[in-house]
């Protein structure tokens, strides 16, 4: 923690306060210049957070603590599973790197034996597959394969005359047809469209939203703007190259417990975090 005071420039103090409670972007960080190292307001926010949470501390679940113990061992340079095989590599050591810091690599310190064995295994697999010419299945082929699995949900995109849409704000294309295929077990899914208008990705893109019947109850905590309302999960941004039959893989950004509604909206290039709900297609799971 730095020992300096606060800047005299109110704008910089405001940026430091903003960083302490909800973070700032790279441009704002650059504006802070040397003051970027000043974490006194971050400390203040930390103390306030402690004060607000002290009476509600939760014990860490045993399984998660056990996984953390393994991370601690790996950090200390001790192989937590020695002499384990590479296939016994723990899933739990999967730390997403923070900006500019590869925490995953830290957690793997001491795992050189695993890495060497894993490399051998990878080479063996590559050698085994090098003579093969099996092409990667297309999304359409994968969708067909998915449809044959037991338990897969299939829901048609609703039509304009569907009574359930009478009150909904929408601009559905009457010609749009197709369905959603969704495997609730694996969270794998595909959207099939016929008649979805081709888009110019520089002007707008389509974005899928998945409404999960188990959110926001379930295990979601009460924190962040999302507590104010039910909110869908981002299912990925995609383009339609033509109005013919297209198959788009679903890319849910979070695990879906119980898919209830699939909605496709029109969004600015790159998609959005908060949709204005300009819906072009909607499928409801029965």
């Amino acid at each position, binding site marked *: *923690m730095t020992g300096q005071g606060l800047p005299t420039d109110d704008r910089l103090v405001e940026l430091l306060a903003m960083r302490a409670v909800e973070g700032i972007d790279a441009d704002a960080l650059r504006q802070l210049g040397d003051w970027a190292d000043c974490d006194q307001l971050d400390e203040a926010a*930390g103390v*306030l957070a402690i004060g607000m*949470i002290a009476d509600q501390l939760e014990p860490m679940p045993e399984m998660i603590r056990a996984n953390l*113990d393994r991370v601690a061992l790996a950090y200390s*340079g001790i192989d937590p599973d020695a002499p384990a095989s590479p296939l016994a590599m723990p899933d739990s050591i999967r730390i997403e790197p923070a900006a500019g810091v590869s*925490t995953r690599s830290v957690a793997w310190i001491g795992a050189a034996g695993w890495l060497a064995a894993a490399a051998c295994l990878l080479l063996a697999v590559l050698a085994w597959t090098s003579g093969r010419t099996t092409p990667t299945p297309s999304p359409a082929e994968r969708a067909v394969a998915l449809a044959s699995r037991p338990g897969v949900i299939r829901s048609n995109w609703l039509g304009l005359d569907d009574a359930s849409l009478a009150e909904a704000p929408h601009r559905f294309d009457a010609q749009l047809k197709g369905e959603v295929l969704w495997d609730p077990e694996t969270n794998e899914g595909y959207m099939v469209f016929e008649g979805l208008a081709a888009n110019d990705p520089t002007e707008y893109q389509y974005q899928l939203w998945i409404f999960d019947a188990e959110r926001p109850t379930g295990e*979601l905590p009460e924190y962040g703007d999302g507590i104010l309302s039910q*909110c869908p999960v981002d299912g990925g941004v995609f383009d339609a190259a033509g109005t013919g039959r297209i198959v788009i893989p679903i890319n849910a950004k979070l695990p879906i417990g119980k898919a209830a509604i699939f909605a496709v909206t029109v969004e600015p290039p790159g998609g959005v975090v*908060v949709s204005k709900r300009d819906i072009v297609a909607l499928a409801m799971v029965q």
Partner: protein
Amino acid sequence: MTTRQPNAETDLLPLVAQGDQHAVKACLDRYGSLVWSLARRMCRNTVDAEDAVQEIFVSIWKNADRFDPERGSEVTFVATIARRRLIDRVRRIGRRPAESTIDTGMPMVDTAEQAEAPALLRDEVAVARAALAELNDEQRRVLQMSIGLGLSHEKIAEATGIPLGTVKTHIRRGLIRVRGMIEDQRAQRARGAEA
């Protein structure tokens, strides 16, 4: 790596910085519940919270040499790193999107509630409660919505009807006030150590 067993009364991070493997693990015993509770509040689900907690502890261990016991408590250092990592994570992964429905009756931290805090957190809780008690109702509510509930400045303004600029001012002044109280607490400690 050395193997000296850390004393429960001593700070752990200087030992971590020296490569003490027991201290690395002892951090989990001492701060696991705090970090987990912060992560549970700010992450979307248990899986995300577990990833976040791993990321936080690795960051704490890596930055252990930055901890200066002369400048502040270890628990504040840990909470500060945890919150920064969590805020980065929320920004990276994205907040859960909100719509316009505002529940102005959302649960708030009751500052009148004076339940005894865990011993480890007692000093920080005392500062936080004293600071919140000094604020007027509006200022306190804004800080609780921002830090306790994680609402953005814009959502707080929308939910309360307080102008956005005033929301920012309340948060800024509240944090500065807490910072001042932390400094006072440090000065008292320093005087106590000298006496």
